[in-house]
């Protein structure tokens, strides 16, 4: 899935997979931080967001 989405032009930083066991809170926090940083480095998601029709 990740490969196909990236293939069609989504930035690699937009989809993440990880494994964290229930005891690995430190790892959990590290993963959250890492992902948040990566995502902050990207612009906000426009390419895949479906814009809501504007109602005048």
């Amino acid at each position: 899935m990740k490969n196909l989405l990236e293939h069609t032009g989504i930035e690699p930083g937009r989809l993440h997979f990880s494994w964290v066991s229930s005891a690995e809170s430190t790892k959990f926090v590290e993963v959250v931080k890492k992902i948040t940083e990566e995502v902050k480095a990207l612009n906000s998601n426009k390419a895949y967001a479906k814009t809501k029709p504007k109602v005048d």
Partner: protein
Amino acid sequence: MITFKLNGKTVQGEEGQYILQVAEKYGVDIPTLCNHKALEPAGMCRVCTVEVFDGRRTRFVTSCNYPIWEGMEVNTETELVREGRKLIVELLLARCPEVPAIQKLAKKYGITEIRFHKEADTCILCGLCTRVCEKMGARAISLTGRGVDMKVDTPYHLNTDACFGCGACASLCPTGHITLEKINREFTTRTLQLIPSEYDMGLRGRKPIYVPYAQAVPNIPAIDRDVCMHFKAGGCQICKEFCGVNAIDHSMQDEFIELEVGAIVLAPGFKPYDPSRLDFYGYHRLPNVVTSMQYERILSASGPFGGHLVRPSDHKEPKKIAWFQCVGSRDQNRCKNSYCSSVCCMYAIKEAVISKEHAGKDLDCAIFFMDMRTPGKEFEKFYNDARDRHGVRFIRSRVHTVDPAPDGHSLAIRYVMENGETVSEIFDMIVLSIGLETPPEMIELAGRLGVELTPGNFCRTDAFHPVNTSKEGVFVCGAFQGPKDIPQSVIDASAAAAAAQELLAGARGTMARTKEVVPEINIAGERPRIGVFVCKCGTNIAGVVDVPAVRDYAAGLPYVEYAADNLYTCSQDTQETMTQIIREKNLNRVVVAACTPKTHEPLFQETLINAGLNKYLFEMTNIRNQDSWVHKNNPRLATDKAKDLVRMAVAKVALMEPLKEIELPVNHTTMVIGGGISGMAAAKSFALQGFETHLVEKSDRLGGQALNLYHTATGEGVQEKLCEMIKSVESDKKIHLHLNTTITAVEGFVGNFKTTLSSNGNQEVLEHGAVILATGAAPYVPDEYAYGKDPRILTSLELDKKFIANDPMICNLKSAIFIQCVGSREPQRPYCSRVCCTHSIENALELKKRNPDMNIYILYRDIRTYGEKEYLYKQAREKGVIFIRYSVDNKPRLEIRKEGLAVTVTDHVLGRPIEILTDLVTLATAVVPYKDEALANFFKVSMNDDGFFIEKHAKLGPSEFSTDGVYLCGMAHYPKPIDESIAQAKAAVSRAVTLLSKASIFSSGTIAQVDPTKCAGCGVCVAICPFSAPSIIDKGRFAGKAEINPVLCKGCGLCEASCRSGAIHLKGFDTDQIFSQIFELNAAM
């Protein structure tokens, strides 16, 4: 309630509060150095000075101890206040120019130079230390002297035993003037030390009030009376003041509770060996010599270093780590533990491999060992992988010297290689693979209970009753029965439970109480009426998240009829209020925004049930563990997040449907397949617990491989006991024997199997609720070592038969050779057969007993006499049995000659081939599983590459399959001796009885269901489900479509995610429900 103005804004506080407290509540920052919320304020540092206007004039007061009054006007940041504070800080800085906390304040107030005489003090005489010391009840220190001589000191400037070294003064000191060193040096006569955390093996400290570890059950803090200052000095009780629910009662006393029970199970476990008794390893003296238990904590993500692999002395990442095996095991000279601790080889390999995974391939891991003992299931493969794939070094040597290296951190060791060469090597860290021993308290308790112990101080049991102690009604499991690993302990535990149940089966269910059922309200057709309960959790949530704002936000969401906040939503009285509100407001869906559903969902579901709602009309969202607790410095975003989460939960709950938990009756008849020791033991245990049992055996007699065995490892005669066992099975009215019988078809599932038996062409269909596979294994028939070409070449079992038959041939022998690992630990059969080392040594001793002058040689690769079987190994060496190690690439060669059998083996010490002429060669052949694929398919269970059945969980579910209702024991699981087989047989029964003791089973509500009109019948769900729940319907209207057995479904959703047609619905986590959460990710714009 007092109302006044703070910086122009109207604020409120309680009568008796001080300005600073109210300011804090309203987020107005006032600096302070001498204030602490646990202590009465003293106005010592003056930094918190503010301006108070009483209507006529302004005054400067210290806000920490100035009580509020109606109508006052307080300003905290006027020019005058700032100027005044600046001067105070400058004076403090002059006194203590090097104190960071004051430097920071000085910077804040723009102080660049000090106009006063500078001193080199670090104490600002704020009195926090002396006030807290008084509060603790110790009163060891006070402010002494006057004027410029005033200082914090003990009476007469003498170290005093009034100071308990609790460290409260140091932890409150704002300047760092009081340190733990200072307390040790100047205050106390006692030795001050951190309270070592038991869980972290002393690698870090813990508090007097503590939860042993994050997953502790119950997860409730306890006060350690031995270190709590209240119990030592009578004061403190700060915890009591701060506990919002008044849960702390220091006057609680130990209670003695007397229970009347029918059986006792001893499961006290073991104590890790304390290696400080072995001085030459330098444990305690050298900080980078750690025990394996400490090393486990170092590796752990929740450990003292957060899972980063660093050494204790300087927190640097090690490049080289050594493991020393057999520390406190297999050692009679330096400690009294001559047994093998069974688990250390495997855990050392595991630690080495994990270390390499953590730190990368370049980390050098070396394991120093005597024999590498990996006789457990899949262990040998792990050992091989560690060596060949991960590059862990295995060095067969005992290290004799450990010295600190010149850098003061690393460790220089010297050891002798097998060829006699002495090697010096420097390691960054040494891990001592410490053994297991029975704690002295347990030895004492055993004495009181009248339970006999073995020479190694483990509980004495016999092979045919592996969990029975010498005292009737008292059972044992785990490492107290003998050193063992997790799977074996879990097996024992279940077995002990079964043994107790055999005794107490008649009393089953007699003490159970039934609960009153509240009738469920039918909500079909109703539009959602949602109640949202937002929890403050005291200040746990409300301290960060703006709970009223979240509540008001929730009230405005679609379908929400009611929204409230609660101080503690989980408290008993709130539960009752919730029940009432649900009834009064006719709510039909409930959202609780609080802590984690993992602990509290069942509680709230119970409340729903009590209010007459289906418990699945509920959604919980986590605004504590996953919000307020982790974003405490970002209240605004935390509140936004809470709103998002509540909105997502409301959207989901609106789509929740009442779910039924399907009830299915359980057939209480059981079936055991395999009539060996394991199968018979299982059938007997079932029968003793009152269950009708069908015992199916493919051959014409009971007994299995045990029919060929002479002695157990503890010297008990097998045949006699086996006969008794067979008789007792045959005569049991509840056991229905099916000899010469095979299984030809199986239908059904947990609780309701239908199995077709075939015997001499006759078919019979039996219905049963559970089944145990105890199909055993067979001996390997070797084609090596000229087996079958000479009557003097036997397998171990053939030798046993000769013992049983008392064959005169064996008494006339002059010499005998045993060759180990025949067919085991080889590329085509990589596992270790576990039983053969002990078996050969036992037989060697038997030969010696019959003819003490006989020359006996055992040719081995590693001797694996785990646990107390090690005594046999020792005894054999004492009796003169010669052990010669060979390597797998240079196996012994055998030549049949007229004068005898010539065996050539390369001796590991001499490094040269030697030839031994002998009269008898015994081949310790592998244990080979039957690989019965048909049977595996019948019960939808799987086999590993070697052909042994794969259990549900290698550690925690060794005696059951992932397919519900199917259990496993004996050698079909893995090669094992009689005691372990019987233990596992009882364990399998015990697991089965957890099912069979119920009249019916309920499926979970959150299971998958197929919509046949959408199903394409492609069968992906059937292929992908790990629990064999889906199947394709073969007849009727929906033939060719899939259906899911609700009882087998575990609700994981794998099938739903893989269903391209969208035909599968996972109730409770259905696609539309998850979509609704996704759709609510961003608030409607």
